[in-house]
């Protein structure tokens, strides 16, 4: 279970505190898929980073009793100056997985071929997205944090990531930030709508999407 309780996040700029999220409370049970809806700047990515533990909330608490991925997106989780292989080695070491297994998985999924021995910063946007996504799927988590990744990459990659996430990992929990109504409707059972830093959970997805579309 993942439970957030009264989570607030403020950033300081020009000497003033600027509140991005206020009093966000919700729970995600094992195997449950919840959508996070909100316009650009509503705080979706901030919430993802807080859930993933990358940044810490200004106040409130986040409880995690299942393993939770880092926020899967176009960046994060790897280091640009290292080669693809060195990044994989690092991940393999800290998550205690055999390097050969991780390498084989990423090679197959991201289809990067010889680019794995090049520094990640030389990759194109599409290659980077494939690499980042493959990396996080290579480690097994109970709950995945997904920040818009589905929209990245070419058609073949989109189809494959779909398969990997929603078919092979149908039993996992997911917190999915997305703009795409069909994906939300097809896979999620509830939605958290974020607006101006406040959040409300809706059990009725159509209602949530209607509200989101009217924002």
């Amino acid at each position, binding site marked *: 279970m993942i439970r957030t309780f009264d989570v607030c996040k403020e950033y300081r700029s020009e000497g003033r505190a600027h509140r991005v999220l206020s009093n966000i409370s919700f729970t995600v049970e094992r195997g449950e898929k919840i959508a996070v809806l909100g316009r650009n700047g509503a705080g979706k990515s901030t919430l993802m980073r807080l859930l993933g533990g990358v940044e810490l909330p200004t106040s409130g608490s986040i409880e995690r009793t299942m393993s939770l991925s880092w926020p899967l997106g176009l960046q994060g989780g790897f*280091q640009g*100056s290292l080669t693809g292989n*060195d990044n994989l080695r690092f*991940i393999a*070491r800290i998550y205690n997985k055999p390097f050969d297994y991780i390498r084989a998985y990423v090679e197959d999924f991201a289809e990067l071929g010889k680019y794995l021995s090049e520094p990640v910063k030389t990759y194109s946007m599409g290659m980077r997205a494939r690499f980042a996504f493959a990396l996080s799927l290579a480690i097994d988590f109970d709950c995945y944090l997904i920040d818009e990744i589905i929209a990245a990459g070419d058609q073949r990659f989109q189809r494959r990531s779909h398969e990997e996430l929603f078919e092979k990992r149908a039993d996992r929990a997911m917190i999915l930030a997305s703009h795409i109504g069909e994906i939300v409707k097809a896979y999620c059972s509830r939605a958290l709508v974020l607006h101006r830093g406040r959040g409300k959970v809706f059990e009725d997805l159509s209602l949530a999407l209607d509200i989101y579309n009217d924002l």
Partner: protein
Amino acid sequence: MQRRVIGALTIREIYTRFGRESLGFAWIVAEPLVFAVPVLFMWKAIRGSHEHGLSVMPFLWSGYIPLLLFRHLGGRILMFIRVNAGLLYHRRVTILDIFVARALLEIGGNLTALIASFALFYALGAVDVPQDLPMFYLGYFFMVWWGVAAALIIGGLSERSDWVAQVWMPYSYMYMVFSGFFFLADWLPPTLRNIALYQPYTQAYEMIRAGVFGGAIRTYGDPFYTAFILAVLTLVGLWLMREGRKFVVLE
């Protein structure tokens, strides 16, 4: 588990800093020597071989290598959380792990450089085995501890405000003057000496020098005071580091 994380971070640090093909770890050892050897020989040429009746080479050698340790530990730790924020995507990696990996690498490199430079200068007949080895080790231990405590404080503070990085540069140069690299407390007038001995690094230098020269000089090192003040600084540093984590913002 944290040991595995720290191990992975250390290897990663070596890769990012030295590349995979270059000299790698050997450079960590060579780096201090490349700076130390010319400085030490130049000094000897300019100032002659004795200072206050002491051999200059052992005096400078026992001053310069600890100086490098302090400057490397401090310099590498500036804004290290910000620079490494990407690593925090992995919840298993804590800032303390990143800190420990960096510090271990610097300390390991410095100790290796200490031994390598000793071997080199010993072979050249420029330095001798320290008279009082346990005292030398104790002094060096305090020096390492001081470097770690200072790095914790600098690392924690530099996340809050950028002026810490601005102050660091002049401070690390001034440090050469007031740390004890160039002097023994015994050479100072009593009032100045009392002030200087409040500084934990001056204390550590006193013990290192007592180790190198034995009974030939008068030193003022106080292990109990030094341990106490360093413990306080370490706690302050750990607290600052933990607070610094809250200021981390990713792009």
